[in-house]
């Protein structure tokens, strides 16, 4: 019988990084080494601990990383609590990749890119950012605006400081919600910071974060003169199958697992407001 996508493969957790007080980044490889499967930036995978639960997570590592996949996961439910409690060497199950991807080899090619992320919303965008950094000649200007509640809640802070900010080919603007000792950077919410920075409307925008942040960011971008066709986001709804058959992650007639998770705002605008 042919392989069935519902029957998962084994992944071994080879590294666990405490990113923020409630976010850990897990490195996953196949038991024989190497990646369990290939993916494109923005795609997701179903991770599970049998008996505990199974859920969809975006793959935060770039496909240009040939050795492993990474998942940045916030502790917020049964399965994620279990994952946060596990140790290096633990096996989990993994299946995918699922969903479409950011059009890194399509519409985004040759464009000036603006990434806007809030909190754990950096996880899916990190895959794109590192893909773009590894294929730098294919894209124009790259700017990242990233904010979180506090300095401690900035996911991938070390990579941002050591690699992205050290990279002369991309610009990174960080912000935190409230003043904090040891922080001399910008303070304020992401949507306001975007308006202050007033990026050029020639840019193509990729935004991800809490729903309220996305809403105000989109409104701010429109004030600056951006149109919905320039702005991409990635969605998250409850999923069981990952392939558009179990019937629950739809927004109108589109399944987030299969037709998404990446949508352009003009495409989302045609769908009912039920997400």
């Amino acid at each position, binding site marked *: *019988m042919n392989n*069935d996508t519902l029957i*998962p493969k084994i992944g071994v957790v080879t590294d666990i990084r405490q990113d923020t007080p409630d976010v850990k980044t897990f490195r996953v490889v196949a038991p024989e080494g190497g990646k369990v499967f290939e993916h494109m930036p923005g795609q997701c995978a179903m991770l599970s601990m*049998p008996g505990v639960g199974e859920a969809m997570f975006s793959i935060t590592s770039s496909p240009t990383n040939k050795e492993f996949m990474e998942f940045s996961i916030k502790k*917020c439910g049964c399965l994620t609590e279990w994952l946060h409690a596990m*140790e290096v060497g633990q*096996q989990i199950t993994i299946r995918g990749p699922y969903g479409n991807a950011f059009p890194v080899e399509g519409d985004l090619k040759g464009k000036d890119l603006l990434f806007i992320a809030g909190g754990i919303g950096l996880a899916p965008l990190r895959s794109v950012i590192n893909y773009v950094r590894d294929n730098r000649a294919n894209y124009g200007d790259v700017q990242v605006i990233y904010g979180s509640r506090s300095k401690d809640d900035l996911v991938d802070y070390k990579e941002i400081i050591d690699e992205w900010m050290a990279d002369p080919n991309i610009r990174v603007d960080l912000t935190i919600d409230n003043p904090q000792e040891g922080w001399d950077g910008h303070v304020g919410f992401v949507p306001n910071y975007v308006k202050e920075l007033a990026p050029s409307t020639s840019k193509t925008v990729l935004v991800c974060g809490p729903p309220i942040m996305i809403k105000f960011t989109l409104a701010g971008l429109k004030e600056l003169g951006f149109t919905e066709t320039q702005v991409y986001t990635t969605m998250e709804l409850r999923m*069981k199958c990952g392939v558009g058959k*179990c019937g*629950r992650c739809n927004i109108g007639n589109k399944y987030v697992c299969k037709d998404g998770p990446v949508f352009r705002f003009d495409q989302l605008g045609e769908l009912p407001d039920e997400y």
Partner: protein
Amino acid sequence: MLKISKSRLGELFDAVAAKQTLYIPTDREPGAAEYKKYESGMELTKELNTVRSAKDFFFPQTENLADFRIDGKNIEVRDIREECGDFVVFGVRACDARSFTILDKVFLCEPVDSFYKNRRDHGTVVTMACSRPAETCFCQTFGIDPTSPEGDAACFDDGESIFFKANTEKGQAFIDSIASLLEEGDTAKLDEVNAKTKEIMAKLPLAKLSTGNFGGDKLNEYFNSDKWAELSEACLGCGTCTFVCPTCQCYDIRDFNTGHGIKRFRCWDSCMYSDFTKMAHGNPRLTQLERFRQRFMHKLVYFPANNNGEFGCVGCGRCLAKCPISMNIVKVMKALEEK
């Protein structure tokens, strides 16, 4: 057309059951029919249709997807799939037969669901034409002709004999396998029965129900209709409609710890349930209005939008008969159509 006298139907069932598993609709209790594995002497029901639909044969209410063994930090995934044995489902009505082609669109599109396909490949659907459609029937709304059902082979009852017609190769193989019991028969009386059935259908209470005002292009118009509040007000969220529905195919995946390992199951789920879309960070369908709307929008708008205009309903009428608050897709269609 080849036929068998109804008095010899038991012989035919015995012959089929000798070679493969046979399921027929039989009376569980007076007035309530269900599909059962045929055993010699079992009689075909005289009810128009079964209480539950026939979708269980291909998409069972519960099925084991995989087993896991946990040993320390290691996990073993066990693929427990086996090739399914050949089976025949006899007496499926035209509405339920059409539901299989609707389920096919979900489960056989890429990536193919191997669990469903396994059963589809090994199952032969033998349908039975209707001669006494009920007041709750509206299959004709969806272009289904109950006097000429789909399925691998179709049967027709003229009162004295059952006639057989092959629709597919699998159906022809079924008829060939019982050919020694069949004889050539005259269909004159059958034509009369079918003509009479069509007369009854034209007079059914729902005969005029049309899908003309529904389809993929009605997405925003109907999603934003102010009728949903009133329509969904009394909905209990019990999910009966989704369970008896032959085309409802939403499912859940859950693990069960047996004490000797983990079993992963797929079970029917219902968009009418409050936890169907519930996530750690919230729920996009907070009230019964959103859940109720989802079910009907799916059948009347989303499904046709994704499937070349085909609707996700076959007009079997089970939800009309079973909803505890007497709400159903017909009332929803009529209310939405009112401007």
